[in-house]
């Protein structure tokens, strides 16, 4: 589903070039789930952006659903993202001027694959029934993130990319949201790549990789650190 081969990415900073990814190789099969951990600034979000086609690598190749994204123009990358990828952000990024229901259906509508029955089921499963006409600002943080997850899964994407999806939530809410996320991923059969700081969040996933100094390595199982935002 997702393959990264010898991906390099460098940013220009006032202090000089900053190498964020230094020859990253990654392969993620259909239905697999992977947690990506690493310190702040280690390049996790950059890797996620490259996987979504939001950014392009300096060198190397990113293949999404069998297509090399560097070979695609911006409109084609946008279409691939629209039809294949669901994105969940730490800051939710809901559209404040759309109602709960409209937010939920937004990506599915954009992709032209809206399924009203599935949307209704999602609303119920997300615990947002009766709140369809509310606006995001009228929801709690946990409800907003559940809605963001619902929006990402409404078009039944093949790949779900989640960037610290519980990073903005308290511990209890984070647990609920994570449980919901994993359940829905299993139900839809989506591949999941999740960026997180928290080993507890990473634990239920099939695999866990550490990003450090621009390279990926299997997480050392002997480490027993706990994330603050689990």
């Amino acid at each position, binding site marked *: 589903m997702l393959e990264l081969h010898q991906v390099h990415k460098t940013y220009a900073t006032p202090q000089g070039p900053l190498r964020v990814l230094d020859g990253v190789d990654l392969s993620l099969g259909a239905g697999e789930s992977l947690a990506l951990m690493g310190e702040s600034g280690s390049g996790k979000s950059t890797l996620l*952006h490259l996987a*979504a086609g*939001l*950014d392009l690598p300096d060198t190397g190749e990113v293949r999404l659903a069998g297509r090399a994204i560097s070979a695609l123009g*911006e*409109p084609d*990358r*946008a*279409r*691939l*993202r*629209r*039809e294949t*990828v669901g*994105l969940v*952000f730490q800051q939710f*990024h*809901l*559209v*404040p*001027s*759309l109602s709960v229901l*409209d937010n939920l259906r*937004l*990506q599915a*509508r*954009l*992709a032209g694959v809206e399924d009203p029955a599935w949307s209704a089921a999602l609303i119920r499963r997300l615990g947002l029934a009766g709140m369809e006409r509310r*606006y995001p600002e009228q929801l709690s943080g946990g409800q907003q993130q559940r809605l963001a997850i619902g*929006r990402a899964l409404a078009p039944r994407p093949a790949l779900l990319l989640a960037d610290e999806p519980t990073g903005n939530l308290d511990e209890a809410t984070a647990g609920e949201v994570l449980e919901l996320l994993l359940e829905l991923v299993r139900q839809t059969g989506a591949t999941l790549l999740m960026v997180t700081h928290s080993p507890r969040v990473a634990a239920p996933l099939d695999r866990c990789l550490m990003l450090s100094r621009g390279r990926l390595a299997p997480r050392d199982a002997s480490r027993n650190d706990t994330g603050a935002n689990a």
Partner: protein
Amino acid sequence: MATLLATLLSHYRRHPGQLVMLLLGLWVASALWSGVQAINASARDSYARAEALFSTDLDRLERRDGEALTRDNYLALRLSGVPVSPLLEGTLEAADGTRLTVIGIDPLTLPGSSIFAIAGGTAATGTGDFTDFLTPPWQTQLAPDSLAALGVAPREAQGATPLLADGQRLPPLILAPALPPDTLVMDIAAAALLLAGSGQIASGEQITRLVAAPGALAEAPAGFALTRAEALASPGQLTESFHLNLTALALLSLVVGLFIVQAALGLALEQRLGMLRTLRALGVSGRALVAALALELALLGLIGALAGIAGGVWLARVLLPDVAATLGSLYGAGVGAELRLPWHYWAGGLAVTLGGLLLAGSGVLWRASRLSVLGLGQARAWRAGFHRQLTAMAAGGGVAALAGLALAAWLASQPPGEGLVAGFALVGAMLMASALWLPPLLGLALAGLTHLARRRPLAQWALADLQLQLPRLSLATMALLIALSANLGVSSMVGGFRLTFLEWLDQRLAAELYLRPPAEQFEAIDAWLAEQPEVAERLATARSDAQLLAVEPGGGEADTAVQRPVSVYGITPGATLTPRWPLAATQGSRETAWEAFGRGDIFINEQLAVAEGIGPGDRLRLSSPRGEITLAVAAVYPDYGNPRGQVLMATPYLTERFAAPPGSLGIALAPGADAAALSARLLDAFDLPRDSLIDQDGVKRIATEIFERTFTITRALNALTLGVAALALLASLLAQASERRRRLAPLWALGVPRARLAHLQLAQLGGTALAVGLVAVPLGLAITWGLVAVINVAAFGWRLPLHFFPGEILLTLATAVGVALIAAALPVLRLWRTPPRALLAEEAA
């Protein structure tokens, strides 16, 4: 695309104020522009109809002895094979008091391509019978917009015979849309009956003029003067500068309105950066996003433009009567009081508004398209653009200033009276340069002041905070600057004009009473007046027309051949008139000039002097009934409001040289004389109609009324433009009100009372507006100079003295501060009403 567009538009559902501001900006910009264009289009339609009428495209014959033409003259000319046609013109009063021009024609002999030449009116209407037009009860041809004055409904118009104010009935009506407004055309016999019935002509023998096809006569028949059609200025030519003036003002309003639009668009986009980023992340391509934004723009533009055109038509309906009166009194151009709008008016209105919107929105779209998907959500990336924008503005201002300098240099190299469009462009360049330089200047000033106020924390905070507001306030301050300076410029020009005009009127109107006696009674009345002890002096006038053939410069250079129609006006120099008559330039002293005038030299008006580069000492060769005559120019005099070149000479000389009939008679009274008693005796003795005698106050009142009406529309447009600028400022402040409250919350938490915070806000905006006002004052005065010294000279041919009015300057500053305080009042009131805890809650949000 529909989902995308609906998502983008959903922003306005949550921020209806922004939508209102955007549509209001578009509406106002479009309404003012469309209103003026509707007035221009209607006026041009009237001119076109007037020009299509026979009288403007035909050569004219008049008697050289100045006597009125008669039917015998016509018959004699026709019998000798001269292809002329008679016209009889007069005015009749409709039942509602409207004065209608009656033109009697002989369709059998009327030449050329005029609308009646082909079939005596059937061509104009496509209906009716040629015989019906020629034989009793005849027909009255008129345009549909003349029906209202006659109290006839359009449906009942065909064949109606409405009553006139004097009780006479018009021949049956036939509609002819091609005719000018308030003009009735009929067979010459029918016109003669009506005009004789109303007492305007003594008998059906009289005709007003003889016309011939252009070029049909190689030379004037003996005893007649020939005026070629091309020498007659058409109303369209005469009023061109008036309409250009209106168009320039409307363009100013459009620009100010578009500033609001751009401010609203920028704000709407800035607030939707997060939404744009999310949409991009959800798979919407950058191109699709920009296309959707452009579509949104077009949709809003269409709504705004249609509303604007509707508003413009309403505005034009309100202003058109004043404009029609102005054009009628200034230029003698008949303009219908009803709007007649051609299809291209509607298309043009839409195109200009949508084009303006595209111009205003293109910057926003361009910036949006350049931001990367990952940078879209970062307001900082968006704002960083503002610093680049300031640099670009400073550079743009420099280019506009250079263009202004180049235009000024070019204008200086042109002969006086040239370069009307360049004059407007110069004023436009001055406005643009100043507006573009304003935000960078304000930024620099604020940075300097923030540094100076470092020992006063609250003042330092206020100044630093103002710097942060600058990106959003800059467009509104630019709009305010343009509106204020244009307002000051135009009001100073109008004020100066009024002062000069009234002073000039005082000087020119030396006599206490003015009489227009019938020609046959002139001598008897003059003799009677000479015997009255109350009369100190009789000031006889006369007028004629001539062709200026050549200018012989006083310096001995070669003659310059010209072909220019001029009016010739006779005055009576004497103790009453000579000391008061204003002179703009003389060769020697005033006394020498008047002595020369008394010997037969001439004065010319400033219009003629500017147009042909004539000065005192030059000599003019003029056509006259006695052949070519050469006369020396002794002085140039100001002649405000006259669109034509004029030659002035003593009345006896004019009568002798041009065989002119007597004109009006000014009656200067002896000190202490009873004007009313003399008037009554005079009217009684000669059985004169009451309106043939008018006192000085009456003339002044009429002239002043004309003057005031002339500038009614100018003042209205100016006030509206200032209103639009105030709206722009209010909209900008309201748009950032909630963000401002969040910034103020920490200060409240630190112990600054809410009243102090409210005062701080008022001081911030009042100070900014004052700074804008201070820039607007020199700019406004520069605009006054441009209007007076460049545009006025090019448009009208005369230059006004430059007047500065300290009161207007103070009013400009007060208006600037007042506008800002009014605009700031609502956000401040909201702040005042917000409970302190809520301020912190907003901050937390």
